[in-house]
């Protein structure tokens, strides 16, 4: 479903930047007040709800071609924003 590699201008952006901008876009679209995205920000405190996270993960799967939550090996579920972003940085396709 919609698996694509980096495309267009996104290729020049680091995965972390893409994660940050996706958080911001989805927060705006979902009318959520997003806390500043620092590494130690707890995701529970980010201002986003689970639907927003579901949308972020789907968008990142489309833009980065990866879904770390659906990888073969089990992952520790991220608790902070830093842990979440690292899932995408360390698991480049």
């Amino acid at each position, binding site marked *: *479903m*919609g698996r694509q590699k980096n495309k267009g201008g996104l290729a020049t952006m680091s995965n972390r930047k893409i994660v940050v901008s996706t958080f911001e876009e989805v927060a705006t*679209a*979902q009318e959520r007040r997003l806390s500043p995205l620092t590494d130690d920000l707890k995701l529970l405190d980010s201002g986003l709800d*689970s*639907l927003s*996270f*579901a*949308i972020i*993960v*789907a*968008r990142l799967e*489309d833009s980065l071609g990866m*879904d770390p*939550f*659906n990888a073969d090996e089990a992952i520790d579920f991220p608790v902070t924003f830093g842990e979440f972003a690292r899932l995408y940085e360390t698991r480049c396709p």
Partner: protein
Amino acid sequence: MWLWGLMGASVSGPTGALHDIDAAMPFAGLRDRSCFPSGPDEMRGRNVIVFTRRQATTAFALMELDGVARRVVICPPDMDAKLLPGLAALVQADIVVGDDSHLLSAIDVRRTLAVSLGRDSRPVQRICSQTTEWILLTSGTTGTPKLVQHTLESLTSAFRRSPVRPGTKWGTFYDIRRYGGLQILLRSAIAGTSLVLSNPQESSGAFLERLASAGVTHVSGTPSHWRNVLMSGAAALIKPCYVRLSGEIADQSILDHLRAAYPDAVIAHAFASTEAGVAFEVDDGAAGFPVALCTPSEANPELKVAEGTLRIRSDGNAERYLNQDSPPLCDADGFVDTGDRVELHAGRYCFRGRMGGVINVGGLKVFPEEVESVLNAHPRVRMSLVKARRSPITGAIVTADIVLADAVRRPGDAEDPTGEIIEFCRSSLPPHKVPTLLRIVTTLAMSDAGKLARPDA
């Protein structure tokens, strides 16, 4: 009560005919000849499976078999011949009749017989002697087809006593080998009015031309069929006085578009299912149906809503499922649960979707049809298909494929309207129902039954 007996007007006058893609076959043709090589008598008391390539062959075989055969099983158009031996065992078939001798010869069943239309034969004396079981196969939205047993009486209960408007000519997008199309066939045959049959090889535009040249007055199809008509650019070819929608939810958008395309026509939407029969027909131009239809009464059919779904008790209910492992078709009070979910708004029950098609977004239910009706109300959207996308966070999220209505793009409209359409959804739907991703497609696949092909159906 036998079909042949009810068809008095059809067989005595020259009026009614079945119009196939390449021929018009008058009902009266059956008066003097049979499509069975040795006449209908060899079918007497038999269990007969009708498995044909052409709709017309099934139609004429049914006219001859009712009151003669013990059981008639109508195979839907898309049925794989490989299923026939299993089906034959299940229905205890004595014989499979069809119009493709090559196909029939390859089938491993006890006996097959090739039948043909217009065969020269000795004069037929028709003697109807028993109530025939009519077996329909449901289109199988949940997987295995179910065998639904009707009688001619239950199949004709919705219209047997209704007056027929003089000059009526029917056209239908449905296949007459399924419940919706069979209703139209029986209406036509009994009233002696002509019926124009569709053909899967034909485009919407070509079929509309055929409907126009036959001068149809009454046309029936699913909302998806009608959306295709509106997109074909050929909608104006026909001038129906009666437009009927059933088989899927008729949302306000399609009703309004049809009203605009056919300002002088009655636009009616009906609810029917193979098991429950015809529940109602509404022609007030509004989606859903008035709550008054659910008032307890001696009316037939009787409608009620229980646990959120529409239930129907009527003479049009099927008798039972033939499959051995099937649950009872109706509850202890005789009501059939349609599985179609309705919600009450301002005095009307509106359809929200099938119980089985629910998308579960983090524990919240989303009926694809409800979201589709909002998408379809956007002026740039002609039709839409809402789907679940798996999500590791919420189990599923809602996505949609949309077909744009190009004709209504005005100067200044956005090149890519997806953002605007999502905003539009957000204004009338709670967040979990709003499609998170929209994909623009040029067409949406339809099932053989003329309904939107749903990936999980």
